Every structure is written in structure tokens, then in C-alpha cells.
């Protein structure tokens, strides 16, 4: 389904009037490189899938949101309604949010709101299948077993309750730097397992989630790469 959409998207995009070279939110889109068109679409699709799954938690509805959004974006490009390609991301996001709102409206009102409220803490089975492979899930699961209870608690407070390292530190009466370091190390183990076998973002990453980098260190330009390999 995604391939079909990408093919359609590529042809529509190719037919759209574009500047010779433009930057769409950091993405280079050039006239003479049709392959990049597919990259832009793939990236947009993955990003939209993340947004839709996070919001709806339902893989079927999320795919509908992704497809509908892409179709509207491509239509806007084809019709010259999206004249400034640098605003592609903002436009796509705005469309996606409208489509998500439509999705809510199309559901039976109160019953689905109730179910949504009940489902906020957990996803239905298979919710992330379109985004995360079975191998990635298995590797992450095994790696998580190797994370100690205390570090796991930090991860839980961070990823399930949304607490920052500083907030966790206050709650446990510990220095924030220690919490940050523990979280960074635990995440690094999980990251290595999760991305094993594919490209590893951390190999070239300057910044990444949970990096053991304080804002002070960043401002001072300190090399903290050794911290992240722990």
C-alpha cells in the first residue's frame, strides 16, 4: 500500500512545478535527482506515521491518516498551492492534524473519546507494526532485560510519565547529573540493540535522545563523546 502511494506520489511530485533546488525543512529537493523525490516522500511518510500512531494508537486509522495527508500534500504541490517548499513540513503537519481531527469526528463521538482516554497509556496489539520491525522489537526486549531495576525505573519515569532528568532527580533526592548519566547509559545499550543490523544513528549522531550532555557542556563546546559510549 505504501509502495503504491509512493509511486503515485513520485509521479505527482515529478509533475509539480518546483524550483531547481530547494530546501524543505532541511531536505534538499533537486530537479535533476528524481531519487530524492522518493526519499522526501519516504521520510515524510515515516514522520507522519510516527505522528499518527502517537496520536491515534490505531495502525489502520494511522495509515489512513498518512495516505490522506500525503495525497493532499501532493495535490497541493501539483496545483501550485504550496509555493514555498521550505514550508512543506509545516504544511504537511497542518494537514495531518486536520485529518486526525477528522478521524476523531468520524468516529462515534463519546464512545470513541472514552475508548481513547482509556487507551492513552497503552497501545493496542500490533499498533507499531508499520513502524517497528519484529526484529527490532525482539532485540529491544532482550536488551531491556539487561537493564537494572533502578535504571529501568528512570526509563519508566521518563518515557511513561514524561518526567525530565531534573524532575526524576528531585523525586529521588539525587543529583540530576547522576540520573542523566544512568539514563544515558541505559539508553545507549538499548539503542545499540535496537539499531543492530541496520544503520546505527548513534555512530554519527552529535545529539540523540538521552545523551549525557548538559546544556553547560554544550555551550562550552566540550567533547562529551566518551560519555555516550558508556
Amino acid at each position, binding site marked *: 500500500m505504501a509502495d503504491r502511494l509512493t509511486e503515485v506520489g513520485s509521479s505527482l511530485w515529478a509533475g509539480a512545478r518546483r524550483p531547481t533546488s530547494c530546501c*524543505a*525543512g*532541511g*531536505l534538499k529537493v533537486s530537479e535533476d535527482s528524481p531519487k530524492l523525490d522518493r526519499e522526501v516522500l519516504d*521520510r*515524510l511518510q515515516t*514522520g*507522519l506515521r*510516527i*505522528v499518527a*500512531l*502517537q496520536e491515534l494508537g490505531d495502525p489502520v486509522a494511522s495509515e489512513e491518516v498518512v495516505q490522506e495527508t500525503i495525497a493532499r500534500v501532493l495535490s497541493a504541490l501539483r496545483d501550485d498551492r504550496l509555493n514555498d517548499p521550505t514550508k512543506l*513540513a*509545516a504544511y504537511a*503537519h*497542518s494537514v495531518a*492534524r486536520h485529518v*486526525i*481531527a477528522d478521524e476523531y*469526528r468520524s468516529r462515534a*463521538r*463519546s464512545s470513541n*473519546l*472514552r475508548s481513547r*482516554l*482509556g487507551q492513552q*497509556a*497503552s*497501545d493496542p496489539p500490533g*499498533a*507499531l507494526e508499520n513502524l*517497528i520491525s519484529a526484529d*527490532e*522489537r525482539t532485540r*529491544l*526486549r532482550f536488551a*531491556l532485560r539487561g537493564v537494572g531495576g533502578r535504571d529501568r525505573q528512570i*526509563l*519508566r519515569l*521518563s*518515557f*511513561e510519565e*514524561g*518526567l*525530565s532528568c531534573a524532575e526524576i532527580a528531585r523525586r529521588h533526592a539525587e543529583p540530576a547529573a547522576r540520573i542523566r548519566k544512568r539514563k544515558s547509559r541505559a539508553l545507549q545499550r*538499548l*539503542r545499540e540493540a*535496537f*539499531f543492530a543490523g541496520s544503520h546505527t*544513528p548513534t555512530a554519527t*549522531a*552529535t*545529539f*540523540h*535522545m*538521552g*545523551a549525557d*550532555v548538559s*546544556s553547560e557542556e*554544550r555551550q562550552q563546546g566540550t567533547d562529551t563523546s566518551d560519555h555516550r559510549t558508556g
Partner: protein
Amino acid sequence: MSGMSEISCERVTLEELLERYVAGALGADDRDRLERHILVCDRCQEEARLALALRRELARERQQARGRPRTRWIAAGIGTAAAAVLLAVVIPRAMLERDGTEHRDVPAAEAGKPNPFAPIGRVPRRPSTFIWSRVAGADRYRVTVLSAGGDVLLETETADTALAVPEGVDLDPGSSFFWKVDARIGWDRWIKSEVVEFAIQPVDAAPEAPDR
């Protein structure tokens, strides 16, 4: 919306935005900025995938952990259960049915669910406070307010059983809203209330001032 400043990968990291995003703890503005960034950033897409997968695994583990003590109890108490079966065979049936009732455990969630008191139903003006019942043993309450379209308008925690509605929350007259309250009764143990609806009377429907 297009006027909002965009964010960088560095800010995503330093402010732990992805963690807060998958936890549903980001405000609408930060959420929109992050989502726009995710649409065009490969690295943050990968990190977001990891964050979503991790949150999912943590939730799965937690659910399994809840079921584990029960499983252990069943395994460890199998001998006791066998003895109980034996007793049930030898004890006269009449004794079991003496009072005509059967004992059942009352689920904890049923025992002390928070009850939303106000606002409920049609209200004449923008409510200033949300009020609900106290739950024994609860140390925190989390209030969630949604628009009819499903947007989360407010999600905040308090130790009290009432919450003053912040000024910035869009509760427009003539619209319907849903809200609920969760009570925390232990480490990561929350009891949810029913979701209730309220509608604010339109401004033009308000009674007119008497003619002078």
C-alpha cells in the same frame, strides 16, 4: 502556526522532548514543533521510533508484572488448591449454600473510583473549577479535559480534589467537552473515573437583561 520557531535536534535532546512526547506530556506548541521537525529529520525519526518502541515495551513489562504475582500464587498454592477441592467434596453442599451467597473479590478499581462532581451536563458559563470525590489512599489526581473533537485541552496533576481551570484553556461557550480524573493510589497505580461530558451554554442563549 507557521510563525512558530522551529526546533533543532540539539533542543530535542537537551529538553528531552521525545521522551515527553511519547509519554503524552508535551504541551501543544512543543508537540507541534517537534512533530514538524520529525517530519523532516531522519535522526529524530529513528530516535522517535526507539522511544515509541521503548515506551511500548515498558508498558508491556508493567502489565506482565501485574499478572505475575497471581501466576506465582497459583503455582505455589496448587497443593492448597487441591486440598480446597478435597474439602469442597467432603463438606456438605448445604453448608456452602447456607447463606445463599457466593464470595467474590471486589476489584480495587471498583472500590474507590473517583467521581467527577462538576462540571457535568449543561453549564451556564465557563467553569472555573473541576471538582471530584476523594479516593482513600490517593496522593495525586490527574485531570484530563478534551474538546469534542478529541484535542487534549488540559492534562494536569494535583494533590487536591479540585482544580482551578487555568486561564489559557479554551473552553468556549456553545461547545461540548469531556473530562475525567485519575487517582494515583500507589506506584504507577491509577484508578480512572468515568468520562463525563459538559456543555457550556452559548453566550447568545444567556438570559437577556430586563428592559429599563
